[in-house]
């Protein structure tokens, strides 16, 4: 019988531990498909974050490392500076990348560190049980904002793509989502481009993936995807925020 659909080679056979309806599985798959498509598994080194994806080191077939909370871009820098011919990516959540690891994120981008960053934004701390994230929406109810996120008390959500796009450093900054088939396909393309940029030695490429957390949002998986469309995407508009090569070509 002909195989018509299979698991990417860059994913191991380990069963994923994610909750039912969690989009991490889709995003892992998109990363693995990009690695397969580019034929780079044998020279890729991935870095797992602290958070829900902490055990991603078991799921990708390439060499893997588990970084301290928020430090993945620094750890990736250390690897890439020692082994510039390897392909280095980080896979980080919103608490990891946009809160505790903000300095590492901004400075890796400012240095145009030639790495690929996959930033999964689901507006909540999932692994610790649903606390307010730096990207939680105004009014969003979480375990640590039980009356809804009060921006007069704890400030406003951070839009990472818009922030990084103000820097000279990064090559490519884009925001995608995985809430429907069309968006998943676009997300896959953006992720592959972020790896291709590294192969081409263009520099820091970050893809923010708007994701969902049915468990901690207290929604069914379907309702969570609807909330991505109705609430998340309006606050975090999809699109390419910076593409130095494209901008340069357009200018010529």
């Amino acid at each position: 019988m002909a195989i018509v659909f299979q698991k990417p080679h860059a994913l191991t056979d380990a069963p994923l531990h994610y909750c039912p309806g969690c989009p991490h599985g889709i995003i892992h798959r998109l990363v693995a498909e990009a690695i397969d498509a580019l034929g780079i598994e044998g020279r890729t080194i991935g870095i797992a974050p602290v958070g829900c994806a902490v055990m991603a080191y078991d799921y990708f077939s390439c060499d893997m490392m588990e970084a301290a909370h928020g430090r993945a871009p620094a750890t990736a820098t250390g690897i890439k500076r020692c082994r510039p011919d390897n392909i280095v990516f980080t896979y980080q959540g919103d608490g990891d990348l946009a809160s505790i690891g903000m300095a590492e994120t901004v400075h890796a981008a400012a240095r145009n560190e030639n790495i690929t960053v996959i930033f999964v934004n689901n507006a909540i701390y999932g692994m610790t049980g649903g606390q307010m994230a730096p990207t939680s929406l105004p009014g969003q109810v979480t375990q640590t904002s039980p009356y809804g996120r009060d921006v007069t008390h704890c400030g406003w959500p951070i839009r990472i793509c818009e922030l990084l796009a103000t820097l000279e450093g990064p090559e490519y900054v884009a925001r995608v989502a995985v809430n429907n088939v069309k968006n998943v396909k676009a997300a896959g393309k953006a992720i592959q481009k972020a790896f291709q940029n590294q192969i081409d030695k263009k520099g820091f490429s970050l893809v923010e993936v708007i994701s969902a957390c049915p468990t901690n949002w207290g929604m069914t998986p379907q309702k969570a995807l609807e909330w991505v469309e109705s609430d998340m995407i309006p606050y975090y508009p999809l699109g390419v925020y910076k593409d130095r090569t494209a901008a340069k070509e357009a200018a010529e």
Partner: protein
Amino acid sequence: MAERVLMKGNEAIAEAAIQAGCRHYFGYPITPQTEIAAYMAKRLPKIEGGVFLQAESEIASINMVYGAAATGARVMTSSSSPGISLKSEGLSYIAASDVPAFVVNVQRGGPGLGGIQPSQSDYFQATKGGGHGDYRMIVLAPATVQEMASLTVRGFNLADKYRMISMILADGTIGQMMEPISFQDIQVETYEKPWALTGTGMERPHNIVNSLYLKPDELERKNFERYEKYAAVEAAEAMWETYQMDDAEIGVVAFGIAARVAKNAVAAARSEGIKAGLIRPITLWPFPKEVLRQAADQVKAFVSVELNMGQMIDDVRLCTGCKRPVSLCNRTGGMIPSPDQVLASIRAAVKGGN
């Protein structure tokens, strides 16, 4: 390099690191060790594969070291006391992942922002942990500029041999002082690193560098295994120097710059007929327990000379089983005891007082 050169202690570390095969330095500026970064910034870009990178923080720099070490590269960072506190999270991760790294602490007075003058007040932090969890680092305490160089090379070798962190615990005085030194006797050892992250090449299962073990029995087993390694280090790698200890009745114990002051005081004590001697631990972890245990059978009292409020003194008491009185002769906050102060402590120890 010429047979003997005049160098600052901090520069000696940097040059020795390069000669030991270190091609990657990640750091963040802090006094009194900036010469190390300055030297590396000048030299490494001129060497093939050499990378000097000034990070955005001490936290980022130690995590860059973590990543670089995971690839099997010889890599280092350097800092001073408050910076080492910031690096301590990373040190715990590096220790827990069993990757080798070389770290320098040119200590300054603390706690807090403290001062920028020499100190030995990070003894506890270096030898008892600093970061969270059960782990150890090899801690080397140079007393001369020559030792800044030779212990740096030894530090890199030991780090690779045992897949551990080696730390040079120096102080602002040795870091800043100049002495003639030689790089003639450098012996670089190399070790296979099949665990390193290099890319699978589609030829082997993936390597994982990790410190997470969610199953408690697995984490316990990991910790037990790591402590077997530490026991081997304790059995094989303790270093010390003794001076006038053959017939000593007063055993002065001091490391680093304090040991040089203490040596003068021991000589002065001898000239007035007091049988004093000096034990200088060169490794602070592993602590040279055996030589102190044996000395406890010989001397009447110990004097611990330190640039802190009394930290190593606990280890002296522990490994001598409190068999003999141990008194403290100390200055802190960036002050250094004079030979006269140490001599006075030796005289007091003869009389049985403090």
